[in-house]
């Protein structure tokens, strides 16, 4: 499992870091992301799904801090175009 710790980052770097990490994976590969509660937890899974990836797990990660969460993303087959 690939691991990405973005607890130290704020928007937009949270998703930028995740996007770059996903970019290096093959479709179907998983990325475990450690992030903070609040804006990162609200936005990152949603953005990932909007861009064609799926969220396999979302759970608290108390061993990483009181406000830490673990989200597992599964890379989609391809980026969803936002062109209409």
């Amino acid at each position, binding site marked *: 499992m690939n691991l990405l710790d973005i607890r130290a980052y704020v928007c*937009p770097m949270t*998703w930028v870091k995740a996007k770059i990490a996903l970019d290096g994976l093959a479709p179907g590969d998983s990325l475990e992301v450690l992030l903070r509660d609040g804006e990162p937890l609200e936005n990152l899974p949603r953005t990932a799904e909007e861009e064609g990836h799926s969220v396999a797990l979302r759970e608290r990660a108390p061993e990483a801090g009181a406000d830490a969460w673990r989200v597992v993303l599964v890379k989609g087959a391809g980026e969803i175009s936002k062109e209409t």
Partner: protein
Amino acid sequence: MPLSDAEIARYARQLLLPGFGPVSQEFLRAARVQVVGAGAIAGPAMVYLAQAGVGTITVDDAADVALGDSAHWLYPPDREGMPRMSVAIEALRRVSSFTKPKLHATGADPTAVLVCPESYGVAREAAERARAAGLPHVVAQGDGDGGVVVTVPVGAACFSCASMAGAGLPATPGAAASLGALAALELLLVLAHAAQDPKGRRIELVRGVPQARATQKQPGCACNKPRA
């Protein structure tokens, strides 16, 4: 070489764009853009190219800064009489530490060309040199309160097929800035491979309204013949 943390932070906003990713940014970093004609249109275009992360910009212009150039983004009035190339490079260094602005010199090895001279004839010559060298290029020509931007990816219809001489009026500052921004965007799309299988196109700016159409090779033109 992967993007550094500093580069990721610098380009975060465009790295977020759908269809644009770290590989696109690395393509921009690897690009070497020759800018022919560093006047009113090229000024804003070069600023945008530098801000987007183009790795090297070589400035190709033999003129000195003139009094009228103070409206050209890169040339403050106190630089009048100095070579445009050196003043432009000085200004671009302030825009981004990730871009290397250089004088264009013999032996430079550009990967793309931005053609922005005031003269239509000079633009045609520079565009033809770029086409013959197999380099993607974008040509921007102002004409009063409008103008045209022609994008020529490798193998597309050439500038001559896609253009005609305008009235020859210098572009107003607003039109020049708009054309420069459009030209930079077109070149960035080609460089970043963001546009899959990029096609040639011509964007006309008429009284502030841009209209794009695909370009077509004209019968008998050199660009319509197989390359030897």
